[in-house]
């Protein structure tokens, strides 16, 4: 079966710094795939290149077999993306953003209206009906971002830090929603540095360290006997014994 997302040999340098160093990832259809790594490990850069938001120096990315860079139109119709910290059309309300993006994606107006209504009520954004996105809190921005990713009914979701700054109640809603998406045959790639969350949700995981894949595969195989956190520290820890304390606080 074709992989939902197949990333081969992706590489990106920014000046002297190698951000992503020949990353290979295979996200099988129907999997819930977690990407974990420290700050600056290259998760966001990898995901941006995988969905066509950043041009790689080397390597390729295929979504359901469609090359993202050779046939962007078809590839981008198959994926819903939640990037981390990028702007939206800020002077629109949540409903207007969804209407706008749905029509841009080529959906019929009545379908857009129905889906926008449902997304706003499920994600708890209905009470902010008259609020412009520029006035949204960080958590609300994540939710409206997720709504735009789900709107056109993609078969693959690529989510960069979807749970950051989201309150616990909304996080529970989100988890139910994402599990339902996978149960219905969809595939998800999400990045996070919260190990417990990845362990709880994902069935596959890849550990990224300094731009390379340190380990990848089904969750059980990667973490082995211990917890994912122990395995993670073992894989990416720089060998210095223990975490140091601050001299004036201890």
């Amino acid at each position, binding site marked *: 079966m074709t992989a939902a997302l197949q990333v081969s040999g992706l590489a990106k340098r920014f000046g002297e710094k190698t951000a992503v160093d020949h990353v290979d990832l295979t996200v099988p259809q129907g999997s819930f795939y977690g990407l974990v790594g420290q700050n600056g490990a290259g998760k966001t850069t990898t995901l941006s290149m995988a*969905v066509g938001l950043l041009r790689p120096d080397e390597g390729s990315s295929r979504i359901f077999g469609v090359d993202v860079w050779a046939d962007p139109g078809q590839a981008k119709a198959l994926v819903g993306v939640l990037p981390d*910290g*990028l*702007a939206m059309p800020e*002077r629109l309300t949540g409903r207007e953003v969804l209407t706008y993006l749905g029509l841009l994606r080529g959906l019929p107006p009545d379908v857009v209206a129905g889906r926008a209504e449902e997304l706003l009520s499920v994600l708890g954004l209905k009470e902010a009906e008259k609020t412009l996105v*520029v*006035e949204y809190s960080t958590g609300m921005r994540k939710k409206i971002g997720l709504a*735009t990713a789900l709107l056109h009914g993609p078969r693959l979701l690529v989510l960069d830090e979807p749970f950051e700054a989201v309150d616990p109640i909304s996080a529970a809603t989100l988890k139910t929603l994402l599990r339902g998406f996978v149960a219905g045959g969809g595939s998800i790639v999400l990045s996070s540095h919260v190990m417990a969350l990845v362990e709880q949700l994902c069935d596959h995981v890849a550990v990224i360290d300094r731009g390379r894949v340190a380990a990848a595969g089904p969750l059980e195989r990667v973490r082995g006997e211990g917890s994912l956190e122990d395995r993670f520290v073992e894989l990416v820890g720089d060998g210095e014994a223990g975490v140091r304390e601050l001299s004036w606080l201890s």
Partner: protein
Amino acid sequence: MAVVTAGARLAPPSTIAVAMTMARMKAATLRHALRGQRAGLVTSGGALGLALAGGTVFLAVRGLPGGADADLLAAAYAVWMFGWILGPVFAGGGDETLRPEHFASLGIPPRRLAAGLLAAAFTGVAPVISLLALAGLVVHGARQGAAAALVAVPAAAMTLAVFVLLSKVAVAALGLALRSRLGAVAAGVVNGAILAFLGQGWVFAVAFGQGARMPSGVVRALPSGWGLVATEAAAAGRWAHAAGVLAGTAVLIAVLLAVWAALLTRRLGAPRASTRGRRPMRATTGTGVVLAKELRTWSRDLARTHQLTFALAYGLCFAGAPLVLGWSGMLPWAGPLAVLMAAAMSANLYGGDGTALWLTLMSPGARDVRGRQLAWLLTVAPVALVVTVAGAALAGGPWALPLAVLAAALGGGAGLVVLVSVYGLVPGVDPHRRGGNPLRVSEDDGAITGTAYLMLVLAALTAVPAGLVALRHGWAGVPVGLVTGALFAWGFGLLAERRLRAYGPELLHIMRTGRRPSGGSAGGLSSSLSELPAGQRAVVMVCMSLGAIPLVPQGIVAGALLSGGASEQSWFLALYMPPDLRWPTVAFMVLLGAGMYATGLTIFLRARRAARGGAA
């Protein structure tokens, strides 16, 4: 090393300590700027400022005590003061290297924070240059005796403090004003009017000159003239008067500092956007929905509201100013001028939306460029047309020429705003991160100002063909303007669409990081510019931004008027010349302007070829 235990209660740092620390932070960023990409801008701006300061001091050297030349010096300082107030407004928020938000969590009392930020504000190129210009006061004093020179020294320093503080208060007040629609409109009107009147300053000089001489009362009553008043009082031996004026300046400084501190505390907290009724989006097509989004952004983003009213007020006031001389011939040009200024203000249309570009990239079929062009036209054209028609009616014509130029400039502007903002993209600050200063649409206001100037020139050039036809053949110019306008809008839009499709990810990367991708060809104009050595870059910037002045108004337009046998001198140097020197003046101006463009372009292209050759 002193030992400070955790949880110890520390006294807040003294005013002096805060000021010193912030001045050092500012100096550090300045050092980076001088080594970095903006070095060219800093040096070219600095050179221009030095020339102006030299000119001001020259007025003092040449001046006659108490005579009309001292009035001229006072007037020059008034111009410096308005420059301080308006510069940051035009450049998008002023110098914000250190922002109050950065220190909000430190618990520094507001006055002390203001004093610290003030110290940082004094650390820079512009204050040093202004101080040089203010040294003219000391020169002026020295010509009248040692006592006057002695008074002039503190007077100069205090005047500089007034300039810097006025600038800070203006920016802070404007930031607050921009939290409401009414405030944004009012600020746009005031700023546009001041800029226009500065540009038309000579009109008023001539108007007042016809009466008797410079309005010496006015230029001395302004805070910028108080230093001169004190110096002159000292020269005349009226010590109490001199001391009183200096004390008054000190009081003004204290008041401004207090006002600024009060404004700073109010600025923390995000600005409120307008909350009017929301009409539902009824668009059903791709372009239609982009248009709907853009029209909503134009009416809801107060920074854009400010830009539009600014452009309109500028056009109206610039064209209306010669009424002071009883000459209404410029009125029909209010509309075209407003269009040019509106295009200049929209020169970074894509950059202003920040990283929202990712959504355009993720929906490849959409016609984002066309929707934006249409929205710009719908926002600017109706009011510009009304203003032009009304102006022509009031002035009793001409009709064909301004209407032809208006049509051409509207189309040219609609094409150029998307083209320039895609090719010369200046990374914007994402709207939700603008913080307490809604004018702060970009971190790089040098580049913003540069593209705005470039846009003024380019948009004016798109109107030249229609204007020439209208001059020769009257009404035939209007259809020509409509056709060239449509062609420019269509063609430039097409180029912008291609650019977005081919280099979208690179442009997004620029927005995201504020940096150009290494070795990429995506940066276009401004990245090639930034690869030039600082000196050459300065030459290119000066040639490109100032070349239009001799070429277009003083050269081409003056020549056209001359060939038409114009009897009015209006505002063209050549027409003030003796008859046999008029055509040579026009020729000289055209050659000068064309030469400046040729020089700038040659250096630029050579550098780009060299860069490409090196990369290959």
